[in-house]
């Protein structure tokens, strides 16, 4: 198992390093040096030179990259040249808001989607099954910002059921939860049907397995068969997808955050992009990509832990 985690982790790190270096390279290779872009055309040459030196832009690219990684190894993401605050602190301030949103969204989607997929598989061809099938296809691809805008328009602005903007009063849990509802629906809606569809498909497959027939031949209650014998296996592929979902949502949360004016990594990145604040852009992209890679890694590992066959296959090497 250790070997598997090591190998899988190594690939993840490799991919992360590659993509970060790529981004870093691109920032510094595009025409026009970042200092000029950041300060705008009317900045004096002195100001530009000063900023370049402060950000280390006068050094060769390799040296800059080396500095970036050695900083990264120490948990240092550099300094925001505008506010003079540490990028790490700025990012860490925003991260919990995004994480809360993503976890509520994926959690809610799973709580609805898994039972829905289960029932759809057991009651095959019932109206519930058909509804799930249509829903799973219909909702998944509707852009989340369209959902967010419609929710905002009706539930917040027109009917005033939910707050329209912000993350709620700090320290007030109920208020914060209340502010989470609409963004989480916008982000998670598409996943309900998707999860249901995945669970349904793998459930149908598992229910035809021989061991399920064995369980039936022993007269086990249908509930035990579905929940303990089939769902456990049927959920394996779903876990991987949930992991991927968390990773994807971390970045697509951006739209919900902007529409509902919520603090978070996405909004931070968006504002940094508009303001050409490269250190913040790097920091935010690094963190979201890191989480994305990490979430796929973790879901792979969970998958291996849940499936004893896979677990040992990995242990055996190969």
């Amino acid at each position: 198992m250790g070997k598997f985690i090591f190998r899988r982790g190594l690939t993840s790190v490799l991919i992360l390093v590659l993509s970060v270096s790529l981004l870093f390279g691109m920032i510094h290779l595009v025409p026009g040096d970042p200092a000029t872009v950041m300060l705008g055309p009317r900045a004096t040459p002195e100001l530009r030179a000063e900023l370049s030196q402060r950000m280390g832009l006068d050094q060769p690219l390799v040296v800059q990259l080396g500095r970036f990684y050695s900083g990264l190894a120490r948990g240092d993401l550099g300094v925001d040249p505008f506010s003079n605050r540490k990028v790490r602190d700025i990012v860490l301030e925003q991260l919990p808001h995004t994480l809360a949103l993503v976890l509520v969204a994926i959690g809610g989607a799973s709580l609805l989607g898994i039972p829905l997929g289960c029932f759809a598989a057991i009651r095959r061809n019932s109206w519930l099954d058909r509804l799930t099938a249509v829903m799973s296809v219909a909702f998944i691809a509707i852009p989340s910002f369209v959902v967010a805008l419609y929710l905002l328009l009706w539930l917040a602005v027109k009917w005033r059921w939910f707050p329209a903007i912000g993350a709620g009063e700090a320290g007030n849990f109920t208020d914060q939860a209340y502010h989470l509802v609409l963004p989480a629906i916008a982000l998670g809606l598409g996943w309900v049907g998707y999860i249901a569809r995945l669970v349904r498909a793998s459930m149908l497959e598992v229910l035809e397995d021989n061991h399920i027939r064995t369980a039936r031949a022993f007269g086990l209650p249908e509930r035990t068969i579905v929940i303990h014998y089939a769902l456990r296996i049927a959920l394996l592929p779903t876990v991987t997808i949930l992991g991927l979902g968390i990773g994807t949502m971390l970045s697509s949360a951006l739209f919900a955050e902007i529409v509902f004016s919520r603090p978070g990594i996405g909004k931070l990145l968006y504002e940094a992009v508009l303001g050409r604040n490269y250190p913040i852009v790097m920091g935010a992209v690094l963190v979201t990509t890191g989480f994305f890679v990490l979430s796929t890694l973790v879901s792979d590992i969970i998958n291996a832990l849940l499936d004893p066959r896979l677990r040992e296959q990995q242990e055996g090497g190969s």
Partner: protein
Amino acid sequence: MNGPVLEIPVNGPVLEICDLSINYQTDHGALRALRNVNLTVPKGKIVGIVGESGCGKSTLISAIIRLLAPNARIAGGVVQFRGNDLLKLSPEQMRNLRGDEISMVFQDPMTSLNPVLTIGRQMADVQHRSSSSRAAKNTRSLQMLERVGIADPETQLRRYPHHLSGGMRQRVAIAMALMAEPSLLIADEPTTALDATLEVQIIKRLRELQHDFGCSILFISHHLGVIAELCDEVVVMYAGEVVESGAMREVFSAPQHPYTQKLLDCDPARIAQKTRRLPVIEGNLPSLVHLPEGCIFKDRCTLSLPRCATERPRLLGRLPGSGQTAPVSVSGTPHRSACHLLEEPA
């Protein structure tokens, strides 16, 4: 136990199937998988069903435990189990019999156990009707594993099926099946996936266990040697019909139906001379969607008569060459077959 209250006759057969017919709905029409099947499993006896793949063995056992495919339709017949028609029980009543009065051992030990649950968990779950404590269930599982000849049962209970060899898994499956001391054990080719040495061991063990538990066994196999080793009675099936049945010794020593004769001729264990080619039965199974008229075996039969093409033979006990009803033999089981030849003078 919350099972249905069954009238349990002291003597008489455990299982009696009369005129059972089953169709599968397919895109090309009804596939008539079983037609007027008759079969009896006496108390405490081992009955073997033998036949090629596609002869309806699996459909038959699925019908007995009522776990038929969704497209299967019962076209008629009675499955009498200890005085009750299984086909008339409610799904709940039927579920209460499964794993309690009727148990099954399946063919493929590699896939018939749940891969993500430990052996111990699955063996405990099989005792779901028992109200005893977890520890008591565990003890019972250990005891059963010992009885099927598994060494170090404590360790095995903590392991997952894929840790165990095929033979071990099949022993576990047998232990699970006998857990509730059923009156009928159905074994669907339980040794086919195993190698010959293991097969012999498992068959021996099954024989001992049957003696100890006093249950009846319905044993499905296409392996004549295993049937001969284990069974008291044998039922030969061909293309969804029973063509011959009787005491194992009588059927094997004096087969009446041409199909049984061919089957025995083709058994590698019986071939006396050195030969380059294994004998086979020429021809293919008839279509079960468009059933031919007359005898089901006539196209592959070398002895067929004119009436075989038009008239379907019935399963009857007759004296060969005379057509007269045969007296019930010493074994108490009539030797029956479905062939017109028996009515022709020799």
